[in-house]
Structure formats: structure tokens, C-alpha cells
């Protein structure tokens, strides 16, 4: 392979996310995974590109559609899959499930099942970093649907007013469940909403992993250097339904097909081949990823059911 390591890592990360979620869908059908399951298939360039642009000390706040972000952050597929299975070995001991993946050691502040509720949290994490003089950025992911919630506005204003190191990352996949953006916002130019808080904002092609990575790196640097919060609109699309319950009645097959032409797992390998990646290198990655996921599923299958005897533990913090 003649492409850079970085390129290969990007591809691998997106592939891992895609295949992980495909497995989850299968395991859901097999009733191994339950509850709500929201897949980000189609949006992998966002999670991979954005998370790669952050440092290990930066904080990440995500939503219920966060498998890709967790994987990109390096949370092992094994502990994630074990979590989906409700296992003691899961990243939250089986208590969170798909919507609530946390990893304190990686500053991954998880999964949140209340739309827009992560934004005030991100503001607070950034306050803590700022107060303690740590040069960290808090990257806060949310969907475009969240921008109609009051919490979005309160959080933007607080972050801007106090010049906090928050990077607001809007994953605009065009829909909030079945509601297209134009039926949710009177003004669909989302960056204008950030401008109303004097927050620098620009749109990014969210199907282009390198564009995402470059933009997030650029914005994160500005934030880190004291430039106050920034906002990026990452334009992307989800290929699958909102959740496993969604009959997907609200958009046309053609629209989905059109977006699939821009599938980062098709276009990025093509780009890399044009740059000199060997034809079977993708196969090598696929095999690596498959092995990793086989192991993850095996790990989850062999895991311990979350112990009922510990149900009452951690309702309150244990005395330290």
C-alpha cells in the first residue's frame, strides 16, 4: 500500500463502524440486542473524520446514534458489543445499551437519549476545562433536529457568552425521525443560527472523511487557542431507517439511492485506489475488521449477564 497510514486508518475506522452496525442490525433481528438501536450507516465519514481530529484529552459528547463515535474514539468493539448484549463486560456493565455508551477513560461522555440534552452538558465540561486551565476542547455532536430545541439555543449562547472551548458538531442528515429539515426549521441555513450568537460557523461535506477531519481540526485549533465556540454543519445522510422501529415512509427510494452514490465506503476506497492503494488492500482491511467483530461478538456471547445482585450499585457514587 502506498497511501498514508492516516488514510488507511480512516478507511479502517469507517469500515469498522459500518460492519459493526450491520452486525448489530442482524443481532437485533436475532433478538440478541434489544431496546432502541439507531444506526449511523451512511454517516461514518462524520464520526471517523471528526473524532480523529481531536486529541485524547478532548471530551466528546454524543447522542443515541453514537456507535461510530465510540469506535472511532477507540472504545474496543468487544466492550461495545458486550454492552449491546447487556453484559457485565460491556462498557457500562450492560446498563446503558446502544443509546448510552460511556467510557470515562477516553473522555467519552456518551450517548444521550434526550435530543439536545447533551449540549448543556458539553458547555459544563468546557467550563471545567477552562476553569482548570486545561487546553481541551469539548466536541459536542447532535443532529439537525436538535436545533429546534430550546436547549440548543441556551447552550450556544452560554458557550459564546463565556467564550468556552466547545466545538458544536451538527450532523445534518436531513431528517429528525421522519421530519425533513424544511418541515422542522423555518430557516434551513443552519449556520445562520450559530451566527446569531457570533459563533463562527461553516458547512462541511459530511460524506468526505478528509474534509470533515480537516475542518474539525481547523475549528478545534481555533477553539483551543481561545477563539471561543465554533459550529460546523456536517452534511450527511443516513441510509437506514431512524431506528429498528421506523417503517421509513417519509422519503423516496430515489433520494436514498442518490445519496448512496456518495457513500464514503465506496468513494473513499476509490479515492485511495486512485492514490495508489493496492486493489486487494480493502480486502485485507475487511478481513481485519471481520476478525475484530467476530471476536467482539464472541466476547459478547460469552459474557456474563449483568448481575441482578448489583442492581442497586451506583445509584449513588460510592464513597471514594
Amino acid at each position, binding site marked *: 500500500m502506498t497511501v498514508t497510514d492516516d488514510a488507511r486508518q480512516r478507511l479502517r475506522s469507517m469500515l469498522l463502524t459500518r460492519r459493526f452496525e450491520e452486525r448489530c442490525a442482524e443481532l437485533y433481528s436475532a433478538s440478541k440486542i*434489544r*431496546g*432502541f438501536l439507531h444506526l449511523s450507516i451512511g454517516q461514518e465519514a462524520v464520526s471517523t473524520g471528526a473524532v480523529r481530529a481531536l486529541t485524547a484529552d478532548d471530551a466528546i459528547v454524543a447522542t443515541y446514534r453514537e456507535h461510530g463515535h465510540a469506535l472511532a474514539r477507540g472504545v474496543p468493539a468487544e466492550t461495545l458489543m458486550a454492552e449491546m448484549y*447487556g*453484559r457485565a463486560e460491556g462498557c457500562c456493565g*450492560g*446498563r*446503558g*445499551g446502544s*443509546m*448510552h455508551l460511556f467510557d470515562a477513560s477516553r473522555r467519552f461522555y456518551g450517548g*444521550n*437519549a*434526550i*435530543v*439536545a440534552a447533551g449540549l448543556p452538558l458539553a458547555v459544563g465540561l468546557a467550563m471545567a476545562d477552562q476553569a482548570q486551565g486545561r487546553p481541551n476542547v469539548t466536541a459536542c455532536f447532535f443532529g439537525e*433536529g*436538535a436545533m*429546534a*430545541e*430550546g436547549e440548543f439555543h441556551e447552550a450556544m449562547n452560554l458557550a459564546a457568552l463565556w467564550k468556552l472551548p466547545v466545538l458544536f458538531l451538527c450532523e445534518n442528515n436531513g431528517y*429528525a*425521525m*421522519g*421530519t*425533513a429539515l424544511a*418541515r*422542522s*426549521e423555518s430557516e434551513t441555513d443552519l449556520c445562520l443560527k450559530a451566527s446569531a450568537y457570533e459563533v463562527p460557523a461553516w458547512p462541511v461535506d459530511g460524506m468526505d472523511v478528509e474534509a470533515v477531519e480537516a475542518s474539525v481540526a481547523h475549528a478545534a485549533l481555533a477553539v483551543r487557542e481561545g477563539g471561543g465556540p465554533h459550529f460546523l454543519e456536517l452534511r450527511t445522510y443516513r441510509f437506514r431507517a431512524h431506528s429498528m*422501529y*421506523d*417503517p421509513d*415512509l*417519509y422519503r423516496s427510494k430515489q433520494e436514498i439511492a442518490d445519496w448512496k452514490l456518495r457513500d464514503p465506503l465506496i468513494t473513499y476506497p476509490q479515492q485511495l485506489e486512485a492514490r495508489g492503494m493496492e486493489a486487494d488492500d480493502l480486502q485485507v482491511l475487511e478481513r481485519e475488521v471481520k476478525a475484530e467483530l467476530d471476536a467482539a461478538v464472541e466476547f459478547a456471547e460469552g459474557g456474563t*449477564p*449483568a448481575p*441482578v445482585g448489583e*442492581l*442497586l450499585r451506583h*445509584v449513588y457514587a460510592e464513597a471514594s
Partner: protein
Amino acid sequence: MTAASKPAAPEATPTTTYREALRAGLRDAMLADDRVFLMGEDVGAYGGSFGVSRGLLKEFGPLRIRDTPLSESGFVGAGIGAAIGGMRPVVEVMTVNFSLLALDQIVNTAATLSHMSNGQFSVPVVIRMTTGAGRQLAAQHSHSLEGWYAHVPGLKVVTPATVEDARGIIPAALADPNPVLIFEHGSLYTDSAVLPADPAPISLTGAATRRSGSDVTLVTFGGSLPRVLEAAEFLSQTGVSAEVLDLRCLRPLDEDAILASVRRTHRAVIVDEAWRSGAFAAEVAARIAERAFYDLDAPVERIGSVEVPIPYAKALEDAALPTVERIVTAALRTVGRHE
């Protein structure tokens, strides 16, 4: 053709699900009164997040089946305003978990306006939401907070537990000139029953005896009813005759029905899926202990959820929620049988 010569009525008695029953009631109300409209997140194009409104967009159009942005406080407040302005809005707040975002509008505006204005305004808004746990949706999607709403004077709070009640509840709520909150337990949507073609109207308030018995009264409401009926059936096999009282409406509360039953059975178990401390069950228990104190042969028992954020893993969730077994054990305790 005389009655005698009529061919036998076709035996296909189609069953109706709870979900369909709600839809049919809503549809009736919309056909009967063009001031009625439905508004909420994904009620239209998506078909309703629990499928209650599926198909209605096509029939009634986007102004009467109105999709809203994610703005719970905004659109619940708008529903309240529209009600004051003369409309009859049905606002769907997807789930009780999200209703916290709209709580100020409900508690501080909908519930106060009539009294505070000395009766100048009434607020005929209907607010529907899914409640409860049991589907492995974890800590932020499993609340049972209908008891909170039932604390607030000015609101009416109903918890349809049967397909029949689901069929009648929306028209009954719309006929009431006050803010009515309908709590639909997520586990009930697929329940089904055979309904008459032209069901009679139901009353909004008042408890219903779902099973008669003489040894102990099991008081419950909403999503817990099926489990409680199961427990009663089990108890009957062990020789304990349990009466099952479905409260149906938490505010106003049918205290008379509760007391009348307990005065006959002398024992009570309250089942409420909310966390045990401070659940609505506490109110029911307290009233019994106050008003039927001298009739009680045993302490009132309460079965609620274990006091933890509801976890995802099935075994953990099951362990946190009221079970038939816990209900049975409590009922047996009241009759002096400790297993």
C-alpha cells in the same frame, strides 16, 4: 328479508388493538368537530412514533395532522394557546420522558389559567403521551411520571388500561373543558380486543372493577393492569379471592370506589410502576390508611419499581419492575400467608 331469513352474521369479529382503538377514537373526534386537530413530533409523515396516527395525515391533511419540530415546550404551549383560542387540540408528546421539557407549560399555564383568571378562560387541551418501562429502553426512556401530573390541581389525568378505554378516551377527553393528560403505557399498544362496531362513549373519570373478589383489593392503573390481573388469577388458584380495581383516572381520584372495595376485603395492595418512594401509590395507600383505617386487617402493601434508574439489560430491567410474583407475595402477606 326478515330476521329469520337473514344469513348468519359473518363470524369474522375483527379484533382491534389498543393502538387502533386510540386512532379510531381520534378519527371519530376529528370527523365530528373540525376544531379538533392532532399535533406532535412525527405524527404525520412518519405515522406516529407508536403508530397511533398512521394513515391520518392522508385523510385529514397536514394542518389537522400537524408534524412539529423537536420543541416540546413550544408545541405543548402552542396547544394550550390554541385551546384557549377556541380550538380542540390533541397534542402528542411522544413519551412522558420528553414531557419534562414541556412541564412548565402544563403546570404553570394549562393548570393555572382557569383559576387564576377567575374562570375567564378554560383550557380544553388534550395531551397524550406514552409512559412506562419494559422494553429495555434504559434510564432516560422508562419513566412513569403520571403520578407527578396527578399532583397538580387544574389537570385531569387518565390512564387507559384496556382497549375499550383506549377507544373512548380521546373523545371523552375532548368533551371535557379542562386540560386532560392521557398516559398510554408503551406495553399496551399491541393489546387487542373485540369491540362493538359502534362503541358507547366512556366516562373520563371513575374507577372500574376489572375482577371481583373478597379477600384483598389489588388497586392499579395503566400498564400494570395486565400483570395485576395475572396475579389475581394466580391467587385464585391458591384460594385467595382478589378484587382488581383499575383507577382509570388519577385526578380526580375515585376515592369512594377504593374505600368501598377495601371496606369489603379489608386488605389492599397498590401496584404502580413508578419508583416506590413518592409514587402515586403512596397517595392511594395514605388515603386507605386514613379513611379505612378501622376496616383494615393488614397493613396496606405497595408494589412499585425498585429505586434505580431503569437499566437496559433485560434481567436487570425485569428485576427493577413490578412482577406478578412480587404482587402475589404481597397479596399473600396481607392474608397472613408468608411464603
